[in-house]
């Protein structure tokens, strides 16, 4: 049985990584088609990561600079084990939704510390913006999660997923919360209109400004995991997981395409406007959803 455990331990992150990378590939192609051009090779993200990891003249600014992307990637791999995949409970018995929210923070904290050590004010500004944005979207996010927990009387993610099996998705039952949840996913992924933290023209890509070579490669792998985590969390919470991996991927793909469509046409919020926006409309929608669940 130990062999099976090891197989799962290696296979799950690889599966998550491949899902994340394939979504990144689709993203560049779809974005290019929206802009009426051909776009890069389909497997371009993989080539990019290979090129970055194979760079020879890497630099470092100190031990914390190295540890930033390392711990971020390790934390992302850890989170993958606590989000149930179709048919597999993974480790949701050890950490429920509230614990999951906190485990997801380890990665951002590590990137922030690494970016701070790179001694570049652009990175610091980027991190300050990213943290402010996190404070912004956490308010509707928490309200949405509480709504779900109250509706299904459990905080175990697997149980929430199971309770929606067979068509009664939380998306149809709690539509307002689902809308708030999607808007939160924009912010969490760092897509337009909430990408003030990694704005290339304003703050030189924020935390990634001083990172190059293998560190940037690790950060891109981390981004692929991050896409998987956010979308899988949304699908598990609102669309009832899936019965097998293909339906799971299809649901994630649909949500991601929706996100790309808005991403490519919208400009960027200023960071305090973004926080004000999050504390106004998504919060109101989520609160109405919460009150509906409380009253019933």
């Amino acid at each position, binding site marked *: 049985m130990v062999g099976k455990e090891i197989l799962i331990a290696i296979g799950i992150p690889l599966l998550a990584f491949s899902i994340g990378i394939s979504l990144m590939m689709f993203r*560049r192609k779809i974005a*290019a088609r929206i*802009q*009426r*051009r*051909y*776009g*890069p*090779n389909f497997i*371009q993200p993989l*080539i*990019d990561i*290979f*090129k970055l990891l*194979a*760079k*020879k*003249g*890497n*630099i470092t600014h100190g031990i914390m600079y190295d540890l930033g992307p390392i711990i971020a990637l390790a934390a992302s791999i850890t989170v993958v084990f606590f989000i149930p995949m179709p048919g597999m409970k993974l480790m949701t018995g050890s950490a429920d939704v509230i614990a999951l929210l906190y485990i997801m923070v380890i990665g951002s904290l590590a990137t922030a510390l690494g970016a701070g050590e790179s001694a570049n004010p652009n990175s610091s500004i980027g991190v300050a913006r990213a943290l402010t944005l996190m404070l912004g979207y956490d308010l509707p996010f928490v309200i949405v999660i509480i709504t779900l927990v109250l509706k299904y009387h459990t905080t175990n993610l697997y149980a929430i997923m199971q309770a929606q099996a067979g068509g009664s998705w939380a998306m149809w039952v709690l539509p307002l919360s689902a809308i708030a949840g999607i808007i939160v996913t924009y912010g969490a992924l760092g897509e337009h209109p909430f990408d003030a933290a990694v704005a*290339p*023209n304003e703050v*030189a*890509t924020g935390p*990634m*400004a*001083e*990172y*190059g*070579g293998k560190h*940037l490669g690790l950060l891109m792998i981390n981004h692929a995991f991050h896409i998987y985590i956010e979308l899988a969390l949304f699908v598990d919470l609102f669309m009832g997981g899936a019965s097998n991996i293909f339906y799971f991927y299809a649901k994630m793909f649909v949500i991601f395409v929706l996100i790309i469509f808005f991403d490519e046409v919208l400009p960027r919020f200023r960071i305090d406007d973004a926080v004000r926006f999050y504390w106004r409309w998504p919060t109101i929608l989520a609160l109405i959803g919460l009150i509906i669940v409380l009253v019933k």
Partner: protein
Amino acid sequence: MDKMTEEQYRAISNMLRKRSLWMLHYCTGCGAMELPPTMTSRYDMERFGIVPYVTPRQADILLVTGYVNTKTLRRIVTVYEQMLDPKYVIGFGSCPINGGVYWDSYSVIKQLDKYIPVDLYIAGCMPRPEAIITAFRHLMDLVDKGKADGYRRYKENLDYYKKNQRKVLG
């Protein structure tokens, strides 16, 4: 790792690297006008895998677009040294080749190759996007064959380059 595997690794690595060159979005002179048309939908550059990136730490190609005076040369040298190996320099326009329209100026560098190693020149004032894309394809060819080794030349002949830089920059 015996020599055979080393060569195979290098061949595969060059083949993959040529497909994902990242350009430094650093407009040093008037030639940068031709970059936006190359990046956008009509003469799409992204289909070759070339994407503009912001900081020298993240980029592979330095485009010296247009004329270079001594003030700019100082910055270009700093940026070039901040880039990570392997890195490539493309001289853009006629000015880095022989001074271009500023051939008799006192403050414009006439021959860029004396100060930083240049892999490729694009002639023209300004080169059209089609010429730029042809140049990128030529660079990808050089990378594939392993001939684009400006960074190695820089490291080996550092004294020569530094002597020239110091003569001009003071």
